[in-house]
């Protein structure tokens, strides 16, 4: 199980996956927006998305878990 964490504080701009989706390494699963810049959150491992912890518009802090992927 791998948890993708936010690298900085920002808002969730898009959520590109659903629970149950299979993702590849490097796939953009979420896009955050911080200081008018879009920051892609990429899957670090391949596997199935088992949990999504943030919705579009939510504010997240650095270190918050965004998506959980089970290999």
């Amino acid at each position, binding site marked *: 199980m791998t948890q993708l964490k936010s690298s900085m504080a920002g808002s969730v701009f898009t959520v590109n996956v659903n629970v149950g989706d299979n993702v590849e390494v490097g796939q953009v699963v979420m896009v955050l927006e911080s*200081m008018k810049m879009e920051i892609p959150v990429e899957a670090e491992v391949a596997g199935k998305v088992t949990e999504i912890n943030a919705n579009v518009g939510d504010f997240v802090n650095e270190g918050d878990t965004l998506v959980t992927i089970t290999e």
Partner: protein
Amino acid sequence: MKKVLIANRGEIASRVIRTCKRLGIETVAVYSEADAEMPFVKEADHAFLIGPPPIQQSYLKGQEIIEIAIRENVDAIHPGYGILSENATFVEQVQKAGITFIGPDATTIQKMGDKIEARQTMQRASVPVVPGTDEGVSTLEEAKRIAAEIGYPIMLKASAGGGGVGMIRCEDEQALGQQFDSVKNRAKMYFGSDAVFLEKFISNARHIEVQVFGDYHGNIVHLFERNCSVQRRNQKVIEESPSPSLSEEARAQLFEAAVNAAKAVNYKNAGTVEFIVDENEQIYFLEMNTRLQVEHPITEEVTGYDLVEWQIEVARGNELPVIDQQQIELSGHALEFRVYAEDPITFMPSPGEITKLDLGNDDDVRIDNGYAENGKVTPFYDPLISKVIVHAATREEAIEKSKAYLATLNIEGLKTNLPLFSEILNEESFIQGAYTTSIIANWLEAQKGEKVN
């Protein structure tokens, strides 16, 4: 005009308040919960909370801002730059409420805000535009066909975009295929319209813009040019006026084209006509910004005029303070450095608390600052902390003075791009004044090379 509401935040709100105070005009600030402790809130005569931190829930709530303006009996609203400054609907609503908008009229804003329409307007006025499409491109097939005709690399741009957002460079057909839907989707999300167009990417170009001003009496003048070629992610970092290494012939062409562009839309108030100048000094219209620009202070330094005061005079219905172009003189050389809360190498945002803010004490250097020590730079707005503006008799002196001053600046608690400035100031192409919009990208490439070696 006795009372002005500033529909903005940070350094530009402080900047507008400063001129209003000097002119004896009362000021009203609006602020979000994230900005309650910002200097501009304290500097204004009155301040009102408008909502939570996200910009959509605070500074972009035009109707609520207008309601505050009505309640407070303000005569005019100054929009600063960004946020609502180029929102034609907001301008109409302000005027409908019987309040003066300090900026151009809604029709001009709309015309120039739509980049496709702006291109068409400029072509009709015989102002040269970058080769590209004159209509929105709706399908990838169409985009590929046109790009093949124009020749790669091309810039794919959102028609309603601006500020470097909603544009991407495509090196080849494959890149265009990968980016087309993404730019359309982003354009829809950010700007409410998915219209996109293509422009040829002009290599080894300089980004040079001309400050123009118009009034309600038919007068239009320019206040010389600014070279804004030091950019990262299509956003400006260092600007200078006048532009180095520009022939007098090209300079005259720029001024003529800019004034013609302003005349073509019967321009009123402050505006900027942006151009791309290629290696052969061929000039191309890029876009017109219908507002005061972030980099307006360097024009103020080399002309000696207060552009916010000019804006207020025009909005009052008065003639421009100077209507004879020959009387507007350029004096010395000015540089502006945008201090951003970001990593100086990756340019990734670096929100956080400013634990130390030592801006030095050189009375001869202008600082347009937005933050106080212990203030928080939040992720909700742009990363601009302060602007350092240095004016001297010559470009060489301005560079030396900048180096000396920037070395004394100390900002702690978050990452800033301060280290980048000294690197650029020591770059040979910058020193020679021969740099292009690739200067930062080239410097980063050279850094990588050095690391490998």
